[in-house]
């Protein structure tokens, strides 16, 4: 509910994602080959595939934590082209402002309280006052069910709680797109569920999401489309039900057998 008001408060932009011809290599070693993705606003795409497929690298190229070797990334109305020798800081700042990222290891700031973790970026990035930032943080903490923890330091919280805080921290900046990099991989299955529940809500509310995950149920039930990657390439990209139950690619079938029949 709070999120809905957040969204209308921000300037009206198209919240879709368009990735064209993304390549990434380290020296001679290519890790991404010609990855393309076109997403409408509000769409949820899960990226699955064996480890080393380049899923995380792809996600990290979207907000330029990794600089792609070639290709363009468009999020909302901001486009960054890797061909530009040095992408200008302003475009990168805008790209990062419209994306929120959630990491496998949460990466909360350990020296700050839960509340401060959520307010600091708001004040430093969006220039909000402490009062405004606190108000946003309070409502988000309520949303993720952790209002009682606001004065604690992250080390006192369970992994699932930390990840919910990390989601709240990213949402506080009103991103257009949320990027999840294996958000439940570092968690016990039970703790993973509480994180997945928060993500499910977010998807229901119309957030545009890209989720690198090994949670096959989430991929099938929550995402609109599933993208399967292996060896730095997209094997297939299609409606989740179809990809998960009737994949076309032999490599996908093999992967799904391995993760589902255990």
């Amino acid at each position, binding site marked *: 509910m709070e999120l809905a008001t957040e969204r209308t408060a921000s300037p009206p932009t198209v919240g879709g994602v368009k990735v064209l011809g993304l390549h990434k290599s380290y020296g001679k070693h290519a890790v991404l080959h010609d990855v393309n993705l076109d997403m409408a606003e509000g769409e949820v795409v899960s990226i699955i595939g064996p480890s080393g497929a380049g899923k995380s690298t792809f996600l990290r190229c979207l907000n330029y934590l990794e600089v792609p070797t070639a290709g363009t990334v468009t999020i909302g109305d901001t486009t960054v082209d890797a061909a530009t020798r040095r992408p200008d800081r302003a475009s990168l700042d805008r790209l990062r402002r419209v994306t929120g*990222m959630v990491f496998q*290891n949460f*990466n*909360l*700031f350990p020296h700050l309280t839960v509340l401060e973790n959520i307010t600091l*970026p708001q004040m430093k990035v969006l220039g909000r006052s402490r009062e405004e930032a606190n108000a946003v943080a309070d409502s988000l903490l309520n949303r993720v069910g952790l209002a009682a923890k606001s004065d604690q*330091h992250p080390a006192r919280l369970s992994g699932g709680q930390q990840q919910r805080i990390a989601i709240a921290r*990213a949402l506080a900046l009103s991103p257009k797109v949320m990027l999840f990099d294996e958000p439940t991989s570092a968690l016990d299955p039970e703790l993973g569920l509480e994180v997945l529940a928060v993500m499910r809500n977010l998807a229901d509310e119309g957030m545009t999401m890209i989720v690198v995950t090994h949670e096959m149920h989430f991929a099938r039930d929550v995402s609109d489309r599933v993208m399967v990657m292996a060896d730095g390439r997209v094997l297939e990209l299609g409606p989740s039900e179809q990809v998960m139950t009737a994949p076309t690619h032999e490599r996908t079938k093999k992967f799904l057998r391995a993760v589902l029949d255990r």
Partner: protein
Amino acid sequence: MLAQIASGIGLTVVITGASLLIGALLGLPLVAARRSAWVPLRTLATAYIDIVRAIPPITWLFLIYFGLPQYALRLDSVSASIIGFSVIASAYMAETYRSGLLSIPQGQWEAATALGMKFLPRTRYVITPQAFKVTLPAIAAYAIALLKDSALASTIGVHEITYQAGLVSRATHQGLLAFSIAGLLYIAMSIPLALAARRVDRVLRQKLEVA
């Protein structure tokens, strides 16, 4: 006797404090240069740090106090010692900062970057407070080492604790007593420093590492 030796405390504290402060400040651009992606700058900073640390402190003091006057730069002995120790401290502090920065997990930089925080706020509010916690014990240890090294300033005639003890020793022929008093004065200054640092360190750690 005690009074005369203790009269050197002021200069010991001034030389140690000033050099530590100047070194701590100079260490900041130095560590930035040392970590720079631009190779010439990084090489220059690395060379500076290595060379400065390779030369014994007393040689530095002589170089500045006896060497510079050849180029018409005559410094009084207190300034010469502060300059010498500041140069040395800057190199040590830069290395201390660097190890502190290296101890911060990559994920902290990445999270701050992904949140859209730019270099300065990222450094100021996310990295520095964490690095400070890690480097504090090393900084305190260096402060104590510097306090003891400041006795070398007596060799170029700074009237600090050791110099005063030397005067007393020669005048009274009670060297054992005179230098024991000097030793006790150094202990009296360094132990509280060590205890305070340990205390701050413990408090900072408690805040972060509870589970």
